Every structure is written in C-alpha cells, then in structure tokens.
C-alpha cells in the first residue's frame, strides 16, 4: 500500500453531488459489510451522489436504488473517482 492514500482517502461524506464514483472498500466489520453488501454497496460498484444535505445524511444512487446514508456511515465508505 502507498502511504499517502491513508491520509487522503475520499469517502462518500466528501463526494460531490452529480459526480460518479466507484466504491474502493468499506471500512467496517463483518456485520456492517455484509449488511451494506445486501443493500448493494459492494467494492467496485459505481455510485453517484444525489444529495449532500450538509452535515446530515447523504443520498446515493447505487444499483438503481436510492439509499440515505448517515454522516458517520458515509465516512466509512471509501470511494475513488471514475
């Protein structure tokens, strides 16, 4: 792993509305990961952000489904630009 990526990770919390991203990985334990998987949030999946409510939850579009993700959760979804 390259050291600087740890500091400059991009998460859903920082994502810009209207832009497209790809999930790198989920920073969480077994329970969280499998739950997010079942809702369609798996690594290498495309996602776009519909709404950044500023401090509140983020709405993302993934596999054609709109999902609201709380701030804390959004910071655990590591993404990269397409």
């Amino acid at each position, binding site marked *: 792993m390259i050291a600087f990526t740890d500091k400059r990770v991009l998460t859903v919390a920082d994502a810009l509305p209207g832009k497209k991203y790809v999930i790198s*990985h*989920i920073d969480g334990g*077994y*329970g*969280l*990961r*499998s*739950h*997010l*998987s*079942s*809702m*369609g949030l*798996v*690594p*290498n*999946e495309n996602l*776009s952000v*519909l*709404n950044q*409510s*500023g*401090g*509140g*939850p983020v*709405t993302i*579009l993934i*596999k*054609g*489904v*709109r*999902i*609201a*993700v*709380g*701030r*804390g*959760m959004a910071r*655990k979804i590591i993404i990269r630009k397409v």
Partner: protein
Amino acid sequence: MEKEITIALAGNPNSGKTTVFNNLTGARQHVGNYPGVTVEKKTGERKYKGYKINIVDLPGTYSLTAYSLDEVIARNFIINEKPDVVVDIIDSSNLERNLYLATQLMELEVPLVFAFNMIDITKGSGKRIDINLLSELMGTPIVETIGHKGKGMNELMDAVVEVAEKKMKKKKVVVRYGEEIENEIAKIEKIISENKAIAKKFSIRWLAVKLLEQDKDVMNTVEELIDSNSKYSEIEKIVSKSIAHIKSILRDSPETVIADARYGFINGALQESYEELQAGKITVSDKIDRVMTNRILGLPIFAVLMWLMFQFVFKVGAYPMDWIDMGFGKLGDLVSNALPEGLLQSFIVDGLIGGVGGVLIFTPNIILLFICIAVLEDSGYMARAAFVMDRLMHKIGLHGKSFIPMLIGFGCTVPAYMAARTIENRRDRLVTMHVNTFMSCGARLPVYILLAAAFFPKYAGNVIFSIYVIGIIVAVLMAKLLRSTRFKGEPSPFVMELPPYRIPTFKGIVIHMWERTWLYLKKAGTIILGISILMWILFTFPMIGDNYSQDYGAEIESMQESFESSEISQEELDKNITVIEGKMAKEEIDYTVASRVGHFIEPVFKPLGFDWRMAVASISGIAAKEVVVSTMGTLYSITEADEESQSLRDTLADEYSPLVGFSFMLFVLLMLPCMAAMAIFRREAGTKEMWFQIGYTLLLAWIVSFAVYQIGRLFI
C-alpha cells in the same frame, strides 16, 4: 379433504410484499408474534382450487445474514418450519438488488417461486425483460404480478401449487463463487456432512457458505447441534484456516468476495435477459425528493405536514365524535328510564355506558390518525422523514431511524416499541424506547380532549397541540440526558433505502388502519370494559347502608314538615334537600374502597394540585390511558351532588382550576404509557430496563407537574 399448503412470503422492504399479502389473503388475516420475540407475524389464508393455502408474511429483509433480528427470524422460519413453498416478492423495477436475497434463498435449497412485482413499472419504462430466459437461468419459476392492482395473483397461486406438488421441474442452479472459494466450500462441506443431525436439517452448501461468511448465528447453531466439542473445534479450525487462505490469496474477506460473486451471478443472468435503459435517469421521485429532502425546505415541509395531520385528525374527527357522544347519551337516558333507580341502573349507566362509551367516542380520532400514518408509510414519505430528521436526531443522540417508532408512538406506544427493532444497535434502541413514551399516544388523546375542552374551551386545539410539543421537547431533553449518562456513546451509523414515491392504495390504507384500530377497539371491549366494571365496584362498595354520620332522613323529614307548615317556601325546600343529598352522596362515596385508597395516596398528589379523585384517575391510567377518562366518567357521575345531569366537562370545569387541569394533562402525558406497553417493553428490552422506564417516567411526571403547578400558582 382439501389439501393444505403453507407458503412464506419473503422479499426486500419496499418490494410490495405487504400489498401482495393483502391481495392474497384479503380480510382473512391474523396478526400474532413469532415465538419468543415480539416481531409481528402476519398470517392469512386463501382457498384456491381445492387447496387451503396458509400464507405467512415474513419480515422484509435485504438478505439472510444475521445482521438484524428480522433477518434471523425470516431465516429461521424457513429453516425450521420448512414451508412448502417460499415466494420471494421481487421489485422488478430494481432487479439487481432484489435478486440478491433471491440468490440466498436459492442457496437454502427450498422450493421457490419468484413474484416479479410491479412489472407494469418496468415494462412501462420501456425496459425489455425475458422472463422465461431469466427463469431458466435462475432455475426458479417466475410469475409477473402487479400488487397494487391485484394482478397475477391466480397465476402466482398456480405456480405455488405446481411447485408444492413437485410438478414443475426446473434444473437446479447453483451460484458459484470462483475456484478459490469453491475449494474451501468443498472442504467444509466434507467435514460437516459427516454429522447426520446437521446434514438432515440444513443444506450443506448453504451452511458451508455461511460459515465462511462468519455468520455468528449459524456458528452457534452448528455448535449446538454437534454432539462433541472436539468435533466442533475441528470444524472451527478448518473454517478459520479456509478464511485465512482466502484472505491471503484474494486479498479480501470471504464475505466480500461471496457478495461480489452473488452480484456477479445476478449480473450475468440479467445481461442475457434484461435490457436496461440508461441508468441514473432523473425520475419523478428524484424531482420530488429535491424539494422534500432539501436542506432548507425539508424540515419546514415536515413540520407543516405534521401540523396538517393533527388538524385533520381533530377537526374532521370532531363531527363523528359528536354523533357517538349523542348516541351514548341517548342510550344512557333510555336505560335510565327503562330501569328502576338502584344498583343495576347505576351499574349499566355509570359503569358500562359511562366507562366504555367514554373510550369508544375517540375511535374516529384514532381511525384518522392511523389513516394518516398509513398514508405516510405507504407513500414512501416516512423514509424521507427519517432522512430529514437524521441530522436533528443525531444532535440529540438518537438515530434517523428512531424517528419512525417516534411517529408511530403518536398512534400507539406498543407497535412503536416494536418498530424500534429496526435500529440495530442496542444502546440506540434503548434510548429510543425510553423516550418513545413521551410521544403522546392515541390513548392519551381522549384525556386531553376531555380536559382541554373542559378548562380551555376556546383554545382546546392549541392546548392539545402544546401538550404534544411538550412531549417532544421532554423526549429530546431526556434523550440527551440518557445519552450522557446511562447510554454513553455515539449513535450507530444510519443507512436506509429511500423507496420511490408511490400513490398509496385505498385497500392498503384500509387494511393498515383497520389492523391497528381493531386492536384499540378490542382493548376497549376487554381491558377497558373490565377496568370500568372494577372501578364502578370500587366506587360503589362497601355501601354505606345506615352508617351516615347524621340522620339525614330525619333532616329531610323535618324540612318537609317546615314546608307543610309554610315556614319555608318550595324553593327553599328544594335547595335544602339538594344540599342534604349532596352531603349524603359525599358520605356514600367516602365510604367506598376507591375513596379510602384515594385519600390514602392523596398527600403524594396534593403538591401537584390533584385531589383524591384525580389521584385515583391518574393511577387507573397505568392500566390503559383511556381508562383515565372512563374512571373520571364513573367517578364524577356517581359523586355528582346535584340531580341535574351535568356533562363531565362542566363538572370538571366547576371543580378545578385550569392550572390543575394542565398539570394533570402533563402527568398523564409523562407517566409510563400502560401495562400492555410495559409488557412489550419487558420482552423487547428486559426486566431491568422496564423497571427503569416505569421508575423514571413516574418520577419525571411528578416533578414536571409539581413544577408547573407550583410555579403557575405564583402567577395565577
């Protein structure tokens, strides 16, 4: 004899599962609980071509892991009860995600039928879908349905019967996870298949996959079923070796790789059978959401909707309430005239009609409130409300999802406690439950309507609204307090699907409304009737007989003599007799059990401005909050000194100051909801938490009422 088939409906939340269930069963539904837990279990039946088909509605889930209680319940029902057919209701406008659950059901190797629901939306948007091909690729019969129009139900039943009778042969399709994982699965399969008890109960492959996914619940089950400990630790060793092996080769944990492979399988199947238009198109839902979940407009819109809801519930509800009120009044008069004065008349008029009528009168409000909640749920706005509230909820230490139990709490606290189950983290759930009681439930509404109308006739609506607002404020403060004391820590993360907006169906709303209203009516017919009778007994016995402190009979006689000898006028006579009868009535009631108990506890309530009767009424509210009204009805109609039958409202307004009325409403708002709710609380959260809930709400109710009354007195 007709044959019975049991089917279980599985499916994602928002897939239209409930609508299909309603269509299949119509009014023949039964709501119960899964054994040991308070998760609602809805069952129903349908007669179809000589079969009796029992239908079980499983909780809506995204998968069959052990992430939430709902998932465990759905999974255990399928494994343990072995329904003849599992029907997976799939939102066909969102196939990829919905089929994820389907792949897990396939893995369980249960007889399956897929219902591709809302197929009209998919086809209407111009997407082409080859159902036959997809059915082959997934090895499962697929039926097209349109839940809200009731279409495809017979076809679905045909498929169910065929699968149950094993007439429909499909080739078995297995989701493959790639060579690395398959090798490990084979190793685990080999060791667990040596154990007959396990091999008989489970699909071995499914079990192996679950063990690789480190599913805690499955691991425990395997440990229980295995006879020797050494055997289990052997399995455990092999599994952890496999996991380590996969991690080292694939550089990812098995559950991620497995999830990926499932989506891979789904994509593969869809690629050949499904043509999708450009993804990410802006839908009508998105357009509505831009307004509804807008960072500036979201909250005000939510507040306005809530305000409109309350206006609707109270303004519209007022008319049928008047009719019911009149009806019970007439009934009371009728019985009074038909029966001679005495115990039986008092029992029927004061005990039965006064008690139960006082509660039934609020049915219109309850129905309207439940209609509103059903509309909010079915339209998809409820999820948006949770979204809009998440930031706010987070600030007070709650969870966006806490909002839904809170809203349901305005209807009834019992389902509200149950709804808190969707909050996965225990601490979050407990805080939500502990403050949920301050969301004023429908049963408390009768108390406010009575008291607000009595003491604040011109501002009744506003006063009631203020009580609700105070409840919310108290909930916020208590949540903050609990978060910083007993339940320290950050709320857990929030993820929630925002389903597309839908126009709610009339049938769906009626069924939802009726389910909940029926519970209310049943309560009025059983618990409340019972308590009304009990209260009447407590307020009637022991009877005073001849034990009056003075000889009132003689007094009345001497009055009449004075009248006959023209010493006093007719008017004076009537007045004096009324006074004497008032004294008698007071002594009669003071002689009863209720009064003795009431006087005993009165000192505790005196500082809140309550007299013994209010004390008794508030305590009776522990049984059920509506009982406060029926108790007051019984209590004041018996104790009413004068013969003119004044309405309860007027009596109250005569006897107490508005400040006392307000203090009383606050007490009723804040103390624990009712016995039924506490029973549920105990099952959901444990005995200790239940006692905590009872203790702190009673204390809080006392403190707030005390403060309001004592401070209020300084100004009034």
